[in-house]
């Protein structure tokens, strides 16, 4: 690690320090309550994972350079400069053991938005060369191939063919003037292609026009997870260009939490201008269709089901009621976990944790929190709306010898769609 890369990292980090950051650092009294909100702490009891402590080097930089006392201390040689060794040590704390879930930010009595700062700290970490290998790989693939998992257009087209064969429905590519531009996550294309078919069937029933862009179909944004705003902006720009070229009204973020945050909340700020189109999560769109009476379902599930809230949808995204409205349409025995909605517990794999091999062990430890929640609830099945949460939960359940089906909400709704011909026949 060179001195230049450290300086570059610190410069980037300096640019991140703003009024909220200064107010946050000025207010912490080390009460330790954030620890109780963090599943990486509660499931390990390792004090290194106390959320505020994960920010210590950044806090020192702020103190040393943006406060009078800190500057004085620095002048008198009383403060410790930030070193490569220290940042290297912090890699584990900033990336492996933080999923940017935002729960600490919601419970801090002093009001610190710790997640907001971890997101910023990662910018400095990445620029100084301290991002984990796994995330570097994912980001490189996202830039070069358009997908963090290396999923190509060909793979997507192959899935589209399967959908056609299964349902008889065409997956529309590059349709100008469509109402919706549907984005996907690589995880969905590879592991949960049912999502694509579900979307096709729902829009077919609702008689809505939609399209996928062959130039920008990936919704996830590794640039945000690793903390490189330039790359994050480039990835957002691809979607913006596609949406503008195809003149769509709404861009739909798929069943993925971070993809939603990336395009919905960070997107315009990354490219430096507001969008000329709406961005909605698929659940928000489905809830709109429900309100308009365009989502016609039949049959109700009797199984005892619960919903796992993806953090970026609820706490960091504000999509709280939509999934509940939708589940109640098709599930009679829907029950909530004790901490749900904006207070949900993370699955343990968000914020780039799943793409980071170094975090493989801790992410399964963190899953124990979800395990406890599910054991207490005694449900027959779990519904969620994020492919990344879903794969983590499936893996966690398997690891813990728990047998429980996990399903995406869009897919569940699609499986209850009223039969098209029967409906039309009934109407005449």
């Amino acid at each position, binding site marked *: 690690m060179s001195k230049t890369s450290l300086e570059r990292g610190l410069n980037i980090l300096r640019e991140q320090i703003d*009024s909220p950051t200064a*107010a946050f650092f000025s207010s912490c*009294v080390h009460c330790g309550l954030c620890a109780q909100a963090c599943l990486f702490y509660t499931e390990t009891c390792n004090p290194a994972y*106390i959320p505020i402590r994960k920010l210590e080097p950044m806090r020192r930089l702020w103190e040393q350079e943006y406060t009078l006392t800190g500057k004085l201390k620095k002048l008198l040689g009383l403060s410790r400069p930030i070193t490569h060794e220290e940042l290297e040590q912090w890699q584990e704390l900033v990336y492996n053991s933080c999923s940017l879930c935002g*729960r600490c930010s919601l419970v801090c009595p002093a009001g610190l938005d710790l997640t907001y700062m971890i997101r910023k700290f990662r910018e400095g970490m990445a620029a100084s060369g301290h991002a984990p290998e796994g995330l570097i790989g994912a980001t490189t693939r996202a830039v070069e191939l358009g997908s963090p998992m290396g999923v190509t257009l060909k793979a997507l087209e192959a899935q589209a063919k399967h959908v056609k064969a299964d349902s008889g429905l065409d997956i529309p590519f590059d349709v100008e003037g469509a109402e919706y531009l549907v984005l996907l996550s690589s995880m969905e294309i590879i592991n949960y292609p049912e999502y694509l078919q579900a979307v096709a069937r729902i829009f077919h029933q609702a008689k809505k026009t939609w399209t996928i862009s062959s130039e920008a179909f990936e919704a996830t944004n590794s640039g945000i997870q690793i903390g490189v705003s330039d790359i994050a902006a480039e990835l957002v720009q691809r979607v913006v260009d596609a949406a503008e070229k195809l003149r769509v009204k709404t861009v739909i973020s798929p069943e993925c939490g971070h993809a939603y945050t990336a395009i919905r909340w960070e997107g315009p700020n990354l490219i430096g201008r507001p969008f000329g189109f709406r961005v909605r999560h698929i659940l928000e769109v489905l809830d709109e269709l429900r309100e308009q009476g365009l989502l016609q379902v039949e049959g109700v599930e009797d199984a005892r089901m619960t919903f796992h809230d993806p953090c970026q949808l609820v706490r960091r995204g504000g999509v709280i009621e939509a999934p509940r409205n939708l589940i109640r349409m098709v599930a009679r025995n829907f029950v909530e976990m004790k901490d749900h909605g*904006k207070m949900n517990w993370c699955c343990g794999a968000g914020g780039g944790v799943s793409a980071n091999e170094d975090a493989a062990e801790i992410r399964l430890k963190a899953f124990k929190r979800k395990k406890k929640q599910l054991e207490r609830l005694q449900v027959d099945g779990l519904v969620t709306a994020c492919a990344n949460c879903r794969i983590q939960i499936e893996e966690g359940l398997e690891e813990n010898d728990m047998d429980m089906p996990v399903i995406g909400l869009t897919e569940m709704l699609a499986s209850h769609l009223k039969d098209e011909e029967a409906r039309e026949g009934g109407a005449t």
Partner: protein
Amino acid sequence: MNSAEFLLWVRGSGLQIALWIFLFGMLIRLLEIFLLGRKKNLAELRASGTAAGLRTMISRSLPPGGNIIHRPRFTFVAGYAFHIGLFVVIFFLTPHIQVIESLTGLAWPALPTPVVDIFTVISLVAMLALLWHRLASRLLNFLSNGGDYLAWTLTFMPLLTGYMAYHHLWFPYTGLLAAHILSVELLLILFPFTKLTHTFTIFIARWYNGMMAGEKGVQS
């Protein structure tokens, strides 16, 4: 300088100096925060965030709702006891109101001194308990640094000396009163440069937290 002369000085010039340092120091601290600025949010907002921000400024002082994490009961009870006790002692003891009135012209009814005395004891006991907890808890011990203990000491001393002066404990009253006022001055002087700033900055922090979440449609 005998103790009477010293008392006169701490009551007069001493207090003036301390107050000016406190005010000027806090002004600097607030400027340090606000001058950094903040980028405008360009995303399509769900709400303005103002109402949510204001609500968070207050709600984080209130006990958490039933659905919120199980806060460690100790931190919760001792934290409230200490802060409420301190607030009552500072703002509802007759001599304190008189000092505030002489400085600002503002006055309000005091609580009976024995009542304030009870709150002093509550605060002192809660502070000792919190200190013990900080030292004994693995989590807090790991997290704590000199700044935490400095802030504790600066707050504890005025409470202790005030309590001793009121009860004429062990030392002559004049000396104790001078020591009490001096400890307050020390608190005021160091206030802007220690963690004690949280008294004011938490409201700014909560505002940003609540406002940014509110723009996304979340009441934080």
